[in-house]
């Protein structure tokens, strides 16, 4: 019996992954992301009609911009819709001889695996195109970008699951999830610009690391740009990023904040889920 309990999480995760991969949301996001990823890898038609293929670094920068919009949105909606409301499925699952922690972990792991398939699948498709067309130079940075974008998607999922558990009604949970995405992907940058203007005469300064730590989307974008060496394209801001996130601990704090963004909503969601009535 004890051995079975250890596997309950995996049984549920496997089922949740299979159900998610069959679901319309994953198919739609996955199809869109894969199509756009290949489109980005192929640099578009040149004047002669020949397809030009970008290198790994340029593709990674472009693909990262797209992924950092799409993947957190997918994670947030996936988590909120899976855990918001109840159509009777959760009741039947929790009526089995398993713990709530096993049920929550299993479902969350299955959704995380589905999101990772979408994220890494899109990057892999683009990677194959670039590898065939332009060689392997810069592949390491591309992998870093793929990992970072997937991590931000998982952060979105973690927050989406928390929203779903707390809000309980599916429609409202998805609404809150979309609001969270708008704040993180759009409004935060505007607020950050305002803060930097007021606190540092418009120049990136000590506030930068704090702001990057407060928003996982911006944190991964900055870390990846520095990691890819693309910060040189960003003028004074890029130089500040390089200075802040280079040797000296800034990158450590931003990376640490990403782990926090992943863990804190998960722990909070688990605490609420454990006490919730179904």
């Amino acid at each position, binding site marked *: *019996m004890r051995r*079975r*309990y250890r*596997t*309950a999480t995996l*049984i*549920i995760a496997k*089922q*949740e992954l*299979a*159900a998610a991969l*069959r*679901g319309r949301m994953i198919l739609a996001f996955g199809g869109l992301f894969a199509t756009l990823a290949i489109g980005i890898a192929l640099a578009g038609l040149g004047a002669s009609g020949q397809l030009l293929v970008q290198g790994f670094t340029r593709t990674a920068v472009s693909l990262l911009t797209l992924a950092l919009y799409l993947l957190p949105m997918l994670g947030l909606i996936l988590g909120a819709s899976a855990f918001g409301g*109840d*159509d*009777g*499925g959760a*009741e*039947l*699952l*929790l*009526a*089995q*001889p*398993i*713990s709530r922690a096993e049920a929550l972990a299993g479902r969350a792991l299955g959704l995380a695996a589905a999101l990772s398939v979408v994220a890494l699948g899109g990057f892999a498709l683009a990677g194959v195109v670039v590898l065939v067309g332009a060689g392997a130079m810069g592949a390491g940075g591309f992998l870093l970008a793929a990992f970072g974008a997937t991590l931000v998607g998982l952060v979105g999922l973690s927050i989406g699951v928390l929203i779903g558990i707390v809000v309980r009604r599916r429609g409202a949970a998805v609404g809150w999830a979309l609001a969270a995405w708008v704040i993180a992907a759009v409004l935060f940058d505007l607020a950050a610009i305002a803060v930097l203007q007021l606190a540092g005469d418009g120049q990136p300064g000590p506030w930068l690391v704090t702001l990057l730590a407060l928003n996982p989307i911006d944190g991964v974008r900055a870390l990846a740009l520095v990691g890819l060496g693309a910060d040189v394209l960003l003028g004074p801001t890029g130089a500040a990023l390089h200075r802040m996130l280079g040797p000296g601990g800034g990158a450590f704090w931003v990376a640490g904040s990403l782990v926090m963004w992943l863990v804190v909503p998960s722990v909070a969601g688990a605490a609420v889920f454990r*006490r919730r*009535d*179904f």
Partner: protein
Amino acid sequence: MIRYEQFTKRFGAVTAVESLDLALEEGETMALIGPNGSGKTTTLKAALGLIRPTSGRVLVEGRDASRDGRDARSRIGYLPQRLAFPDGMTAREVLRFYAELRGVDPELRLLDRVGLLEAADRDVNGFSGGMRQRLGIAVALLGAPSVLVLDEPTASLDPSGALAVRDMIHAIRADGTAVLLSSHDLAEVAALADRIGVFVGGRLGALGTPADLARSLGLAVSTLVSTATGLESIYRRIAVAHPQLVA
């Protein structure tokens, strides 16, 4: 089998169930009836640990449903009021999934028992309401639990679907499995249940055999189960007899 000891559940300012003392005996079939919101579903869910008591406790074969929930749930098969299965699965896969979670064999004979063997490899999304309920009962029977908890098992079914489910419950109780169910159909519960508990306003207003219940309300059993009598009439009579229940 299941024992409620001073079980009380409050949702904020609303008391769903107040100080319930009730025991389902071995091999017994007990039906809970009452208006919507009277506490039937809360009572059933508490036995699964799906709802935690505000005070009091619920024991399943001596195990506290909240503290030893996993152990308690291993002894109960459950059919929820709103039944949903994982997307895109066949009936066979559904049975296998829940069997794995319970650590028991996915007994295909259960699909035969509920008349779904021929539909074993069909996607459950294409199932009728009656077929879904029957599959739900097959899932509830996995591992031969000593007690079944069925929340309005025939609600939203057409007459033939309801009849098939009732026949199944008859067969299950004939095997000696204890059954605790809720229903809005007096004729159904009078035919199925050894005892009927009537909930009004979150309290158990009456409890007894169908004959006891009819007698206490000054009715003949035939009148009790007649659809013309109607549940509302029964609830009104109980409310008049026990005004403190709806105070």
